[in-house]
């Protein structure tokens, strides 16, 4: 039975897997994007893990109805978790840069999206409400204000679980307090391949900041991408969280720019080799797994930004970071991809997308 708590718009389920904004026009060089997540629970209801399905549906009805009336969201629509195929859930994970899976999502759980492709509300997963906003303009303050406007729009109908001692109460106490997690995604191939990232971490030690790869692993930077987020949500205020993040991001950006300038002036052989190999791999491979694809796309992006590779725009290469992942690849090719064909289809897709690229690296 379909989820009774959600206003049903079946046609809009398919909108999810064709949604490409804001990733289809991202021209950012180093600071690719940021996500802000706000965790909230509703007073007098048990948290979702202990809540029965009927009460979950009651919450869905209450929250979705209110969200639909909030100004500032662009045609919001809700989809029940049980209405989504695993492939569609994967698409959401990839699109909204979520590395905590929700493949297990069931009846009583739902997602609210809007036409901007930047807003997502996860309902009744770990917490009753998780509001997420994806920003590609480097405007952390503006994104935060947008999320708070949505939260304040919910306030008349939802009394949030809050205590003076712990702030906003969340199922995981480690994110109580502000309930705010801000993550910036930085592309740092120069620092990583010149082996300068570790020195940078040591020099710029900041206990308020956590750095991991995009999959949450602190030792593996897939696609030379770093996810930089606030280490604390409790014991700090929102302004300090955003301020600390902004200051850390700026330091990373300056260090990466500095490293790239050095590569450019010294024509560092190891980087020239990486960029050339990446171009070869993308243009001639017949099998590419996601990790290898992301790392070659990263090297090619660096080559373009150093002026060594032409024929592909930064916008197009940024889009490839998404479209090479399984659910997005499937959506781009408009076909369901079997597991055994995935690497083959990805290589074929990337060969086509990078065929116009040419390298002109000085020897």
């Amino acid at each position, binding site marked *: 039975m379909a989820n009774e708590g959600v206003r049903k718009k079946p046609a809009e389920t398919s909108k999810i897997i064709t949604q490409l904004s804001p990733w289809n026009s991202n021209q950012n060089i180093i600071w690719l994007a940021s996500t802000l997540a706000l965790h909230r*629970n509703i*007073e*007098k*209801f*048990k*948290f979702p*893990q*202990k809540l029965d399905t009927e009460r979950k549906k009651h919450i869905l009805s209450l929250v979705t109805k209110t969200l639909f009336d909030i100004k500032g969201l662009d045609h919001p629509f809700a989809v029940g978790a049980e209405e989504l195929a695993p492939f569609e859930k994967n698409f959401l994970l990839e699109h909204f840069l979520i590395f905590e899976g929700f493949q297990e999502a069931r009846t009583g759980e739902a997602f609210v999206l809007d036409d901007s492709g930047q807003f997502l509300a996860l309902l009744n997963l*770990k917490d009753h409400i998780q509001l997420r906003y994806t920003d590609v303009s480097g405007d*952390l*303050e503006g994104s*935060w*204000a947008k*999320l*708070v*406007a949505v*939260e*304040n729009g919910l*306030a008349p109908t939802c*009394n*949030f*679980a*809050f*205590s*003076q*001692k*712990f*702030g*906003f*109460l*969340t*199922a*995981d*106490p*480690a994110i*109580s*307090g*502000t309930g*705010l997690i801000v993550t910036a995604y930085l592309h740092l191939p120069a620092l990583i391949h010149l082996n300068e990232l570790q020195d940078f971490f040591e020099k710029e030690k900041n*206990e*308020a900041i956590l750095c991991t790869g995009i999959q949450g692993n602190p030792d593996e930077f897939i696609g030379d991408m770093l996810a930089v987020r606030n*280490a*604390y*949500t*409790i*014991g*700090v*205020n*929102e*302004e300090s969280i*955003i*301020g600390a993040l*902004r*200051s850390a991001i*700026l*330091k990373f950006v*300056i260090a990466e*720019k*500095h490293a790239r*300038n050095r590569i450019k002036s010294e024509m560092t052989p190891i980087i020239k080799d990486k960029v050339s190999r990446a171009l070869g791999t993308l243009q001639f491979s017949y099998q590419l797994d996601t990790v290898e694809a992301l790392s070659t796309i990263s090297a090619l992006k660096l080559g373009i930004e150093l002026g060594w590779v032409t024929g592909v725009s930064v916008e197009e290469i940024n889009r490839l970071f998404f479209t090479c992942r399984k659910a997005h690849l499937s959506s781009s090719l408009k076909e369901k991809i079997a597991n055994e064909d995935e690497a083959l289809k990805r290589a074929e897709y990337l060969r086509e997308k990078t065929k116009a690229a040419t390298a002109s690296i000085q020897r």
Partner: protein
Amino acid sequence: MSEYMEQLPERHLECGECKKPIVVVYTEIVGKMIYRLGMCADCPILRQKLHGDARLTAIGGQAAELVCGGCGTTSDEVKMGSLLGCSLCYEVFEDLVIQELQTANRLAQKMSAVKKVAPLHMGRIPGQPGEVNPALKLAALHQALHDTLGREDYEEAAWLRDQIKALTEEKKNNGK
């Protein structure tokens, strides 16, 4: 060669149950198998293995485990890092939650020495607007400019100056 087959985890980095640093290596021999588990000192599973069911036993004069009246979550579940079940859990397990936050280094360090009765939360309360002082952005840029000039990196300094100029002009225009 020993007739026992030994099963060892690859590395003892964190408690298999609570994900805290390992203090005890618990070895259990069942038939011909040797199991070794790395566990933290106050792991409820370790207590259960050594002293039987923790729910029924008071250990070392301590009271038996607490249970939240709102959702049935137990103190052992909280110690093992399970999610809390309801708002009431924060009152029932207040000390335990603070202790767990400190152990996991999830409480800003300046708060670690705060008095027990003082609020840990320093952010906004429900209904407050979400305004961030626009000067924050400028402050970060000025700090970075200062650092960059200190390193005599004039190229980056010029880039930062452009950013500061653009932001200052944007602020002026918004203020009109």
